[in-house]
């Protein structure tokens, strides 16, 4: 792999001011070279696709209960039918369709959770990093201490109090995950603020707004996108965990965690009910982690060489 990239390391997106199209093409070439990243992107797009087009892909209504078809094993095993690819649950609902609809819950929680956490964290982190001094030390200490608490325990505790709803789950993750974004943003802002190019821009008489929007923001986006990918993966994971404990979205909503919880009671007699939602969680998580690894390498040119 190293040999095909070595002759001319077109190593930086910044070396010449290119058009956006050139940059995208460059990123595309890097992606093509990284098999893991390609796989990650493919898996991620697969999940997004099934969430967006769920009504068209799903062969059945995810809520429709057909009691005479209940507890049917997957199509390839004895007693299965191609009518229900991954079998049916104890109420005779089609597992494949429920998994497809379940991706909507997972992605919604992941996306809006990260959006809220990212926005809050970025504001707090930017204030700390930009102002420095006393404000910074108070924020940084608080963030570090909060991050040292047992995270899952508090998520479970808060979820138990507020009760089961999609909005609650999104808010819980959005707020409890903000400190991580704050920590990363602060670190990056600090690094960028002291960098040579910001100093030279300041010397050249650039305005405050110009420094923030033209120099700090573009350099902040890379690490934050990478972090957002990993955090989204983690939230999807934790949401399923909460669902498994019966603390996420209401039981009537088809979500992967709820399916796992329902299948757990029938683990030994009808193992497929709990197996397939777990596979769905794993595929999503794997895809996003691979994508995150690749983004980290691509968006940070310093890491691009160290990887090989």
């Amino acid at each position: 792999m190293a040999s095909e990239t070595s002759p001319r390391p077109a190593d930086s997106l910044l070396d010449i001011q290119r058009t956006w199209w050139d940059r995208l093409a460059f990123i595309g070439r890097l992606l093509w070279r990284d098999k893991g990243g390609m796989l990650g992107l493919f898996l991620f797009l697969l999940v997004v696709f099934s969430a967006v087009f769920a009504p068209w892909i799903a062969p059945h209504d995810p809520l429709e209960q057909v009691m005479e078809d209940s507890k049917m094993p997957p199509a390839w095993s004895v007693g299965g039918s191609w009518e229900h690819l991954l079998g049916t649950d104890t109420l005779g609902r089609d597992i494949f369709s429920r998994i497809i609809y379940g991706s909507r819950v997972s992605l919604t929680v992941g996306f809006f959770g990260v959006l809220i956490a990212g926005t809050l964290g970025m504001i707090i982190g930017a204030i700390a990093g930009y102002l420095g001094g006393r404000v910074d030390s108070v924020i940084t200490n608080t963030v570090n201490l909060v991050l040292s608490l047992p995270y899952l325990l508090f998520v479970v505790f808060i979820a138990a109090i507020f009760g089961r709803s999609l909005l609650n789950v999104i808010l819980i993750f959005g707020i409890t995950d903000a400190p991580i974004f704050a920590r990363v943003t602060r670190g990056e802002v600090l690094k960028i603020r002291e960098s040579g190019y910001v100093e030279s821009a300041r010397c050249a008489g650039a305005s405050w707004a110009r420094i923030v929007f033209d120099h700090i923001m573009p350099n902040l986006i890379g690490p934050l996108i990478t972090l957002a990918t990993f955090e989204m993966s983690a939230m999807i994971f934790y949401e399923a965990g909460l669902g498994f404990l019966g603390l996420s979205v209401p039981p009537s909503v088809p979500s992967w965690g709820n399916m796992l919880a329902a299948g757990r009671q029938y683990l030994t007699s009808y193992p497929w009910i709990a197996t397939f939602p777990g596979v769905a969680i794993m595929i999503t998580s794997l895809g996003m982690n691979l994508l995150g690894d690749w983004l980290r390498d691509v968006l940070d040119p310093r890491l691009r060489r160290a990887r090989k």
Partner: protein
Amino acid sequence: MLRYFLIRLGQSLALMFGVLLLVFMMLRVTGDPAALMLPREASAAEIEAFRERMGFNRPIIVQFADFLSKAVVGDFGESLHFRTPAMTLVTQRLPATVELAATGLLFAVLIGVPIGMMGGLKPGSAADSLARLLALMGQSIPNFWLAMLMILFFGVQLRWFPTFGRGAWNSVVMPAFVLGLPVMGQIVRLTRSTVLEIRSEDFVRTAYSKGLEPPVIYLKHILRNASIPIISVIGVQFGYMLGGSIYIETIFAWPGMGQLLQLAIGWRDFPLVQAIAIFTSTVVIALNLLTDLVYAIIDPRIRYGF
């Protein structure tokens, strides 16, 4: 050193106060803690009597002062379900959870560090591919789901391990393995990247040019320097495992604090939930303080930074 210790101690106490305040507020933020703790079908008279008994009808400041003064001596009231002091119930469950978390951590370190090191020493080799695969899998496989599959396969079909409870010596194997899995993934990843970095440091090159045997260099020069970030991750992860054990303990019916938490939530036994949350946080905060102090002793740069 004393100054550093006092600052860290002060921070820990402040955080402890923050945790108490948070837990106290959380139980009241929905408006009525009595409604939260009683079953939905409770009558208005029952709720009123309960409110009186728990002291929820007093001004909130008085309630908080009362809560604080009891909390400092470890009194978190009675469990609604068991009608015995909540704190005693929690501490009874502590040994089981510590056994599970410590075994899981041990497993994660014993597998994770050597594999991560092999990967970092020879990037691109087969061992490195294995290390990267393990790191990825540890992060991506939902461990509560893997736990169910393992029960099905190793417990029910092969009958190698007990499927639930804490009894025979081998009952800890499966729950500890799945609890340690995500941690192992992290340790592999971190060891690999740290070793990769240290490998090209000047002092390693010097050691090679002095003619030292590679195993000596691996252990004395590379592993020793890599151990600082690894130890810090272990400290953080132990706290994560104490909280994350709720899933694993629930699945394996392991009689620890996590299982108690899950049961307490089901019973709406919030005094017990509150005691578990505060007790676990205290343990984690104390562990973090301890880790930092050990650090400061090992690494003078930290204590002179203050």
